[in-house]
């Protein structure tokens, strides 16, 4: 097994699939560009600065790790991807040192210290974000309204999820109505699109889409940079799935379980009865989609095998719901993924054991 690289390459097979781990990381990064663009439109200069700082910090950290290990790894694209994902979790206007410290922690401590790409047992970006939440809780929970909604930059406001959490135990109303009642701004676009959908589509199904959901989806609400560009994240996810770059079972199981639990047990408001939770509200917030497709499905820190992936995704969905519904903060999804990252070896073992029991050899 001690053969040189050159000899290794002259071993069959001589043709390969188009996918390489570097290409996969670069494509993932490319699909985040629309997310960055949309959030920059929403928040202007403060968003652009955060995206650039995070990526630059990630590149510098990776270069430092490369220099220390004497292995040039900037070309594999994973550093840029980590930087982008960290930026996506930042609230607009976070001080520059928050993304920088997160990126450095993610790449130097979580990834490089455990042996670089492929050896990290936690998703580096998520670990970096959790690091930021632990160290700068105030900065990480300070949100502002997008320019179009407030008219001016930098009007601070709570995210819809935090707002909903504050309501718990209060009035007996639905979360969207509560938002409206608190004179939460409603954009003209929302009014127009909701009206159009109600007139053309939902009226025929004798249903009605309440105001406010369109704002949640297009990001006209306070939120993290990646959380705001829900449509762009969905688009990127479609690209990742259609190119088969991620294990589809994980986000599917996660979203299905989370959505189901949110529907069953609600978002935490007293007005929501059993079986009548606002799943759409719950799933549009807290970067759920971004975490599901870009972080939970990250190949390195997730299990291999269909059954193991389903179990892993479902557990993340359930844990995120529990953390968010009964936990103290709204970023429960991130912690759910990190917790499940640690259990990956056990999940794989369990899945292999099940297959053996059913008479198939691993």
């Amino acid at each position, binding site marked *: *097994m001690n*053969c040189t*690289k050159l000899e*290794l*390459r*002259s*071993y*069959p*097979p*001589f*043709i*390969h*699939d*188009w*996918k*390489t*781990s*570097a*290409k*996969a990381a670069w494509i993932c990064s490319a699909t985040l560009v629309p997310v960055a663009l949309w959030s920059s439109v929403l928040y202007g200069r403060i968003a652009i600065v955060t995206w650039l700082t995070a990526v630059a910090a990630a590149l510098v950290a990776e270069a430092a790790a490369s220099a220390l290990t004497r292995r040039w790894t900037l070309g*594999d694209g994973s550093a840029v991807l980590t930087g982008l994902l960290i930026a996506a979790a930042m609230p607009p206007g976070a001080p520059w040192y928050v993304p920088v410290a997160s990126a450095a922690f993610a790449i130097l401590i979580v990834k490089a210290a455990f*042996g*670089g*790409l*492929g*050896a990290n047992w936690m998703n580096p970006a998520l670990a970096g974000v959790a690091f930021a939440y632990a160290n700068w809780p105030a900065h990480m929970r300070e949100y502002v309204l997008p320019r179009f909604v407030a008219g001016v930059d930098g009007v601070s406001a709570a995210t819809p999820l935090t707002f909903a959490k504050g309501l718990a135990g209060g009035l007996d109303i639905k979360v969207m109505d509560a938002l409206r009642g608190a004179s939460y701004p409603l954009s003209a676009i929302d009014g127009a699109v909701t009206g159009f959908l109600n007139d053309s589509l939902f009226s025929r199904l004798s249903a009605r889409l309440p105001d406010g959901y369109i704002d949640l989806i297009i990001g006209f609400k306070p939120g993290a940079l990646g959380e705001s560009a829900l449509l762009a994240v969905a688009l990127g996810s479609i690209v990742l799935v259609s190119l088969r770059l991620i*294990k589809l079972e994980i986000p599917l199981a996660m979203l299905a379980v989370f959505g189901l639990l949110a529907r069953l047990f609600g978002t935490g408001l007293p007005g929501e009865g059993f079986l009548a939770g606002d799943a759409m509200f719950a799933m549009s917030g807290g970067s759920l989609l971004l975490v599901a497709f870009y972080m939970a499905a990250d*190949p*390195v820190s*997730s299990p*291999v*095998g269909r059954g193991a992936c389903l179990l892993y995704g479902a557990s993340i969905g359930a844990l995120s719901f529990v953390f968010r519904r009964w936990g103290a903060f709204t970023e429960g999804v991130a912690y759910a993924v990190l917790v499940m990252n640690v259990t990956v070896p056990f999940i794989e073992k369990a899945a292999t054991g099940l297959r053996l029991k059913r008479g*198939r*050899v*691993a």
Partner: protein
Amino acid sequence: MRARGFKRGGVPVDHRAPFKTGPIENAFLPMNAIVQLREHRCAVEPIPVVSVGQEVREGQLLARSAGKASSNVHSPIPGIVRRIETTRTPGGFDSKAILVSLEGSFSMLGKRPERYLWKSLNKADIAHIVQDKGIVRVSSGEPLYEILSERSDAPGFVMVVSALEMDPYRRTEEELLALRAEDVVDGCAIAARMALPSRIVFAVDERIEPATLEPLRELAARSELDIAIQRFRRRFPQDLPGQIAEAMDIVDPGTLFIIEPSTLVALHEAVVSNKPHIEQYVYVGGGSIKRPAILKARIGAPIGDLIEECGGFSGHPETIVIGGPFRGRAAADLDAPVTRTTRAVLALSPEETKSAPERPCVRCGDCVDACPEGLSPYRLLKLLRSGRPDEALAAGLGRCSSCGSCSYACRSRIPLVRYFDEARQNEVRR
């Protein structure tokens, strides 16, 4: 007729390199032929019966079979024996080779072949001819005589004539089935007379041309043999015995006797025209070859000559491969000779190899999806790298057929098969 296929894993072969069909041309005769005596890693080396400086005729015996897996070797060209020495074969093992340089007149070329009415021959006569003429199964390098007589001792097996081409390049077997169907079916009848299969299955591609299929059907019906024609899905490694058996719902691949049209043509020529195995159909192609073609080449001809005849290189090839893109070997240089198992010579461009620097495993699971045996290659690799070969064997390493699907799919370009091959060789040594 439903196309059959193996159940899991594999690599789809949807895009084939374009190929213009037409009569198969004879390659030019080489000035020097390097004839390798061993065709198989485990073969006993045949004993040379000529000496340096001796004049030999075309088809004259050069070396005599000396035991298990070895076969008679004949001179592909008329000439003078220049050297007898040990060289490294393209297959990666050492073998004695006889160098013959071209001189004198031809006894076979240009002559109308005599046609012997083989139907009067009995089993022993056929066995004698097959052994004498050094016919080798081109897919494995084993002497056909040995396989046939082993089979005839244990009847009740299925003979599969496999014209399956499960890579984007080679078309030889399909072309032979189209151009020389009569000889293939006749060769099949000869093999059947000696080995006595319970039935015969022609394994063809799911997208076979009707122009090929119809005449084949007619010939099969007229042949007085129990011949069925079965389509198989075009997915690598459908051409491996394990996957053929799986597709046919046969539990033990050992009950299948798999043989290719090109071997049957060689067998037919040996019995009917008294011709030793001195020619080989070679597909020359790949993205860096100007005019891909199938050539009927003499054994011992340097592959560089064949490439020359196909117009030479276009662009700069990254690798020259002898055999298929999945399981072939890299040619050390263009002087590597054609052997009785050289089925293809490929000059692959970087766009085809898509090679990239090796990176650490990212656990994407693509190798698990690609493995036709249902193994977890990434886990086997982890076990082998951490020095636990016994656990790797327990996890199914022994079932790996070295097809190369996992390495093909690997995003990090880890040569998984190389590790598996080495681990099993170490296991054998222990």
